[in-house]
């Protein structure tokens, strides 16, 4: 266990000053996520343009440093990407958090991948993995317009 690996400067920074913590004007997709065990809540808003590109993405919510940082970094990285690319990034991230050692997508630049890999410290803290993945699952739900509140316990 290494707390420094978990609480890297970039996580602390994004946790304390989350980027995109607001509500997108004229969003056309959104979804809510909830972790009933700890009470973490997130609401992801998306604005996809006619070319299915993410024109804007934002989130509202409250939670621990890990969940806020994860949502903050996620929203930073997927802005400007096409829907199909977003889905690939999400699934790559979830694979990495669950089992893989690195990210394999060709969409993100190296420095973006490095930023995202800062979240990999949670792998050693199984109870905290849900904190890191909540906003990502919620983003998937928003893209699918499933109108289902993502619940980490279901």
């Amino acid at each position: 266990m290494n707390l420094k690996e978990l609480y890297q400067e970039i996580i602390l920074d994004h946790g304390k000053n989350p980027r995109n913590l607001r509500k997108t004007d004229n969003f056309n997709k959104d979804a809510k996520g909830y972790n009933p065990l700890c009470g973490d809540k997130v609401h992801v808003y998306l604005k996809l343009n006619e070319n299915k590109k993410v024109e804007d993405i934002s989130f509202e919510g409250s939670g621990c440093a890990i969940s806020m940082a994860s949502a903050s970094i996620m929203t930073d990285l997927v802005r400007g990407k096409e829907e199909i690319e977003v889905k690939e990034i999400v699934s790559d991230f979830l694979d990495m958090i669950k089992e893989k050692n690195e990210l394999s997508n060709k969409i993100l630049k190296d420095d973006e991948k490095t930023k995202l890999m800062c979240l990999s410290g949670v792998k050693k803290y199984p109870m905290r993995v849900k904190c890191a993945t909540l906003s990502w699952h919620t983003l998937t739900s928003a893209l699918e317009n499933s109108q289902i509140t993502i619940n980490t316990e279901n």
Partner: protein
Amino acid sequence: MNVSDTKKEFPIFDNKVHNNDLIYLDSANSSQKPRVVIDRIYDFYTKEFSNVGRSVHYLAIAATNLYENTRVSVQKYINALDKNEIVFTKGATEAINLVANTFGQKYLEEGDEVLLTELEHHSNYVPWHFLRKSKNIKIEFAEINNDGDITLDSIEKKITNKTKIICVTHLSNVTGAILPIKDIAKLAHSKGIPILIDGCQGAPHLKLDMQDLDCDFYAISGHKMYGPTGIGILYAKKKWLDELPPYQGGGGMIKEVNKNVISYGDLPNKYEAGTMATAQVIAFNESIKFLEKIGIDNIEKHEKELLNYATEILGNNNSINIVGNPKNKGGVISFTIEGVHPHDIATILDEDGVAIRAGHHCCQILHQKLGLPATARVSFGVYNTKEDIDQLDKSIEKCKNIFNLK
């Protein structure tokens, strides 16, 4: 009491957590188990096991006697009038569900009110919510004051001529408030209303006297009283257990069964359908003996000292906000640190072997009222020492360092 001797009776403390000594500050969640309780389960299964109350062979008779001995021990421990006022359940949750279900079935009609408090654990809210759905009853909440306390006045304000039962916690698992339950019972009875006490946090830490308290129902959790999981107790005045319908149907709770008519067994069998948590009930007798050996007065004194010490230390820390300041407080402190989420606090403390709880502690109504999504909580047991609090203090400093707080 000699804490270091007491602590030696708990084998869990022989283990290391992340190479550190275990500092267990989560007893309000569940307490650790003394060796006598663990050994009793092992001995029962290796030497004495049988189902109880059915067969006539040697083992069955011996096991039945052991099982019933616990009932008598509990009766004496809580000073109930009759041993048949002690019903074994799988936990305090089931005890409250039993009352909500049977009392609701028999006495509650559409528009009737059940009065709870904002301090209640989900286990003393959700069972009543089922009746709100099925019978269209109303649930009222007595409000906490600014200290996170419930006063007699706050209860009285919410009583109407529709109030059919009052259900309150003995000791809040979040603010630590000890409610004036004897006065609340007196008030309820002066209006002809029965009262249920959720004693999950009260029973392990406070002196209990059912006859003096005069409550109608008192729910107890075994695993918070240094006992095994899977056992709880419903204390209920005999007249209620006679009047209310059975809760679950099955073997052991019947008198006679034929194709058209079934008659139910006498107390205590009426409420104990199926094979109960036999080994746990028998081992729970050891928990009672363990508590009696230390003495509840000594436990109260010890935990008060820890509470005062911890309140002083945490109170002197400028970054810490202690939740609630009730007049009468048990060994529970919930707190927040400005700038660090409770889950991050719990993860960082855990690295030092310090086990605390973070979250809403199954009290979302209260956390909504307090405007806090989550809190960190420390709670004490017989094995905790002032050194545990000192380590807590050090680990909190580490937490602040990681988060670059002054």
